């Protein structure tokens, strides 16, 4: 008998998959480009080998940490939930397979290519050792932290995937869980440490974060208190194993549809959740039906907005709490910018999830094909989805902008207008403007990619990458080039220049991908709408 048969089979399949090789080669190429840039900088004499080695190490280590932390979103987050939606999980449980076979099999199958990509980074970290400025221990610890963060991310994704059915809930829940342990837990730990009599609970909370492991891996921190690093690593590994154990334990208990609940979420099971519309709402919906049936269709799901508002309000309260605490001891505008950017990113993330699932879900269920048999035009169908998104997110965005305005007013009171800090309120206004622009573009690009992409998860990831991540990738590439190729590194760069570059790049990518998405949508709507998955792959 084979131990873990699904794991063995999935590993054999994943090892032959093209994407495994492509991702490994892609990451290796990026890393090699960095190494060649470093060699060039040393040869020309712009920087000392030790300085280049240190910069290269920091660039690659941060890149590896960020990639590992969010690997779960693209790999395990929608693995089991997808099987549940498609009804194939039940077939697995009809065989001799156990819950751990399924969970571990899915875990290995989906995350093998990402694992290879992270391991590929190790030789480039080794190059920084040859250049100098970094100790061998630092490199080993950085690799260990990247692998631990990867384990944490895929375990969190597996746990959320085991308890959810919908793609949106799976990806959103994984993101929230990762954010909770990466940012919220250390922030709470810091607050507790500052106010409590004993540092124990504060240390415990901050050690749950993979970011703490990364910070403690630096040579100066590790040489002073090595036990703190090992404790943090152990805490993250134990948390990951708890997530995996919970997924294994819960899966056989939650995969079936419960006839009592009729497939409804807990929010919709509460008494009075299903109620008839008021006469006013009925009249309004009739008006929509006459105007465009797609709008009438989109005006149905009011209950989904409750969970959205709960999430946004919790996020906003946390951001306000952090701001109020930090403004006593730090300058207001930098704290405000970090809080606002985080809140904006969360709202954009929610818009991207919702937009990329609209048409993708309809296409998968065959509803889009049925709609195309009616006299509705593609533009009218799209207007219905845009209307639904506007109903959900318009007030959320207005609320966030009002909060931003309050922050801005609070910051302007103490701002010295004669100083060089004048760029800070301008940057803040730019961030507010970009929230509106990004929200509009994300709606269009998400909807259009939902129509084209193979799965809604892929549509979401592509939307996020094109609109939100590419500008940051551009900034990172610019910073890496400056760090490697100039003598002063990035120390002489004004923060305002970085913000301006981010703003310009965001506008540029928004316009480019908006044009591309609308082009695909208007020219190939019908052909994409009736395609099956296999034909999409061939296309």
């Amino acid at each position, binding site marked *: 008998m084979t131990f873990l048969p699904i794991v063995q089979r999935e590993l054999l399949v994943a090892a032959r998959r093209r994407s495994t090789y492509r991702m490994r080669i892609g990451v290796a190429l990026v890393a090699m480009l960095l190494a060649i840039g470093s060699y060039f900088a040393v040869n020309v004499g712009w920087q000392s080998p030790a300085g280049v080695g240190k910069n290269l190490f920091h660039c690659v280590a941060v890149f590896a940490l960020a990639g590992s932390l969010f690997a779960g979103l693209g790999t395990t987050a929608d693995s089991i939930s997808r099987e549940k939606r498609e009804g194939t999980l039940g077939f697995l449980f009809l065989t001799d397979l156990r819950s751990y076979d399924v969970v571990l099999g899915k875990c290995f199958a989906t995350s093998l290519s990402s694992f290879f990509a992270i391991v590929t980074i190790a030789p480039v970290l080794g190059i920084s050792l040859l250049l100098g400025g970094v100790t061998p221990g630092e490199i080993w610890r950085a690799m260990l932290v990247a692998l631990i963060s990867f384990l944490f991310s895929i375990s969190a994704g597996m746990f959320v995937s085991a308890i959810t059915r919908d793609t949106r809930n799976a990806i959103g829940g994984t993101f929230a869980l990762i954010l909770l342990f990466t940012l919220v837990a250390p922030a709470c730990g810091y607050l507790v440490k500052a106010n409590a009599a004993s540092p124990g609970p504060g240390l415990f909370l901050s050690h749950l974060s993979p970011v703490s492991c990364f910070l403690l891996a630096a040579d100066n921190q590790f040489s002073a208190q090595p036990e703190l690093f090992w404790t943090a690593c152990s805490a993250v590994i134990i948390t990951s194993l708890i997530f995996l154990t919970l997924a294994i334990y819960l899966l056989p208990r939650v995969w079936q549809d419960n006839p009592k609940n009729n497939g409804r979420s807990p929010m919709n099971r509460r008494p009075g959740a299903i109620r008839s519309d008021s006469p006013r709402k009925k009249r309004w919906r009739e008006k929509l039906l006459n105007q465009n049936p797609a709008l009438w269709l989109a005006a149905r799901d009011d209950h989904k907005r409750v969970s959205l508002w709960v999430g946004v309000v919790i996020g906003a309260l946390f951001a306000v709490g952090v701001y109020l605490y930090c403004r006593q001891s730090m300058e207001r505008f930098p704290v405000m910018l970090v809080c606002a950017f985080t809140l904006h990113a969360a709202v954009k993330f929610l818009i991207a999830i919702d937009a990329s699932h609209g048409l993708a879900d309809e296409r998968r269920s065959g509803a889009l094909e049925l709609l195309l048999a009616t006299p509705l*035009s*593609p*533009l009218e169908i799209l207007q219905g989805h845009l209307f639904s998104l506007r109903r959900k997110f318009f007030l959320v965005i207005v609320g966030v902008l009002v909060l931003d305005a309050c922050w801005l007013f609070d910051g302007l009171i103490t701002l010295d207008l004669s100083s*060089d800090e*004048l*760029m800070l309120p*301008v940057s803040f206004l730019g961030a507010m403007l970009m929230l509106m622009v990004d929200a509009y573009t994300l709606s269009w690009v998400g909807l259009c990619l939902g129509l084209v992409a193979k799965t809604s998860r892929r549509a979401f990831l592509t939307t996020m990458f094109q609109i939100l991540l590419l500008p940051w990738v551009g900034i990172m590439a610019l910073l890496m080039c400056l760090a490697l190729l100039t003598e002063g590194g990035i120390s002489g760069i*004004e923060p*305002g*220049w970085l*913000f*301006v*570059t981010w*703003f*310009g*790049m965001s*506008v*540029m*990518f928004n*316009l*480019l991908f908006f*044009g591309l998405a*609308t*082009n695909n949508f*208007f*020219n190939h709507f019908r052909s994409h709408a009736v395609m099956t998955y296999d034909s999409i792959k061939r296309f």
Partner: protein
Amino acid sequence: MIEVSLRCFVFGLIGLIPVLGFPLAVLTVIHFWKARLAAASEWNPAHAYLNCGLLFAALGCGASIILFGIVLVALLVQ
């Protein structure tokens, strides 16, 4: 529709000039949207010009914002 697409291309090309071409880059985006909506139900023979116009406008807008912003930051810092 064809005229708007060609106009979009020309405006986009002028919009590539940093800072000075910014208003025309914005106009290109407006024309692009008009032509795209007009071409929603029929084929646009000048779609390549339309797409190129938007590409130029996007590059022009990005370059203008970055250049203008860098100058503004330098002025504010001094």
